[in-house]
């Protein structure tokens, strides 16, 4: 780990000033990803801004529009077990509990979860080229070991995935990220928060380098009954998704009124295809329909050798997740048998 100075600002305004004070400043909250990256010399901040004690960011509150506002410093554990989250947004609770371990969820925060970086092996290995870590050096994953890598939205520069489970559920629920910067506060829809790698894979998100996440806001709950978070991985617990699917349906009798489907483990951001979701409107849940929807979502999917299997796996996962959601039988995050 390199050497750095440390500041513990007492207000968001002071924190923004600290962040602006050095181009190599980094924000630390739970630290579960940043400290790890610093140990690998992947992140080398010269100034660490500890936001973990900023006032007002550690609570979950009603929004007034029927939604919930989850403060950026609310731990993953606190969010997952909050009774309002469990009752109104069980998809979010389920996705959070599908990720990491009890120890990590206790320390990791809501804001930090969104800002965690890819677990691409090449990104983590400071001895090899990686355009995400060092712009312009290339992507060894494309022709290398790429079992965990993306099949959608990739570029020549990068085929990394975003590792978060929480963000996949938030994408399906159309959450909004509230951020503060030197020019005031603004909202970033979750769908626009993470970005595709394109020519600038070093940028994971559209959050400005001088901005701080204040909260994640959930709109009024609509999918508390017909939902599932189906996560497929190389071991039953404590592993990142090879493919995950957050599926949420609003049903009227046996007809789908609205569908939301977001995929994790397949792209540089949670993957949603609104055109595919619309195909379910007015339809009764049916395997043939689900297959068509899955094919639409995976249109243009491309494997790189080691991850070719993900295309068929994702297709089947979408179909299975839609079946689970329609039946109101969400995937258990304890009993991993897939029904």
């Amino acid at each position: 780990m390199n050497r750095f100075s440390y500041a513990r600002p007492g207000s968001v305004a002071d924190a923004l000033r600290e962040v602006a004070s050095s181009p190599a400043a980094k924000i630390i909250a739970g630290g579960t990803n940043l400290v790890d990256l610093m140990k690998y010399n992947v992140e080398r901040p010269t100034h660490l801004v500890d936001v973990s004690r900023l006032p007002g960011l550690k609570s979950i509150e009603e929004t007034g529009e029927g939604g919930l506002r989850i403060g950026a410093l609310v731990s993953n554990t606190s969010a997952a077990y909050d009774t309002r989250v469990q009752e109104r947004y069980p998809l979010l609770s389920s996705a959070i509990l599908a990720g990491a371990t009890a120890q990590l969820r206790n320390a990791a925060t809501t804001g930090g979860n969104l800002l965690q970086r890819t677990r691409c092996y090449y990104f983590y290995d400071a001895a090899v080229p990686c355009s995400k870590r060092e712009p312009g050096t290339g992507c060894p994953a494309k022709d290398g070991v790429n079992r965990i890598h993306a099949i959608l939205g990739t570029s020549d520069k990068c085929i990394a995935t975003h590792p978060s489970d929480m963000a996949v559920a938030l994408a399906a629920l159309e959450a909004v990220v509230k951020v503060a910067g030197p020019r005031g506060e603004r909202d970033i829809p979750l769908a626009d928060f993470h970005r595709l790698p394109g020519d600038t894979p070093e940028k994971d998100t559209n959050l400005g380098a001088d901005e701080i996440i204040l909260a994640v806001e959930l709109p009024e709950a609509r999918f508390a009954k017909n939902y599932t978070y189906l996560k497929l991985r190389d071991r039953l617990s404590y592993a990142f998704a090879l493919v995950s699917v957050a599926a949420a349906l609003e049903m009227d009798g046996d007809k789908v009124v609205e569908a939301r489907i977001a995929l994790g483990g397949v792209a540089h951001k949670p993957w949603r295809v609104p055109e595919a979701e619309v195909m379910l409107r007015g339809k009764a849940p049916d395997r043939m329909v689900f297959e068509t929807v899955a094919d639409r979502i995976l249109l243009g999917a491309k494997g790189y050798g080691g991850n070719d299997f993900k295309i068929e796996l994702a297709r089947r996962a979408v179909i299975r997740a839609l079946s689970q959601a329609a039946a109101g039988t969400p995937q258990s995050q304890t009993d991993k048998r897939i029904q």
Partner: protein
Amino acid sequence: MADLEFLARQGFAPDAGPPKGLPDEIPITLTINGERRALHVRPWTTLLDLLREDLSLYGTKKGCDHGQCGACTVLLDGERINSCLALAVTKDGSELTTVEGLAGKDGTLHPMQEAFIEHDAFQCGYCTPGQICSAVGLLKEGHAKTREEIREMMSGNLCRCGAYTNIVDAIEDVLAKGAAK
């Protein structure tokens, strides 16, 4: 500087030095196993290195040093965390319980420690302090009731000897006896 020696052992060349004007050490207060301690730490010292290198509390183990194995699990303000991923300076003012702090002052073992002995829930013992601290955290959380739930909620603690069956037995036993503290 033990921290630098450690880095050298890991094959990392330390940087030229801290940015100019950087205070070498920052004063913090931690209550460790019931004892309030005024300490001075460098900002890059993890809680784990502070415990082992500076305070000679060797019960907390360094396994992977990356939050993957759970050997470094401690209780921070009652909640289990990986001490290898926590910078000590960020935990200023907190209460920390390590495996050394679980037994009573008179040496009476914590029910979880008793259960680990009774169920032979270890072989080499290296992961055991982390397993026990994690299990104590699990009891307090109260989310695990079944054997299956215990296994899921203990997934952050690896045991390369493979003593999992007996570890789950031990935790299940303590849960059944309602000895949760």
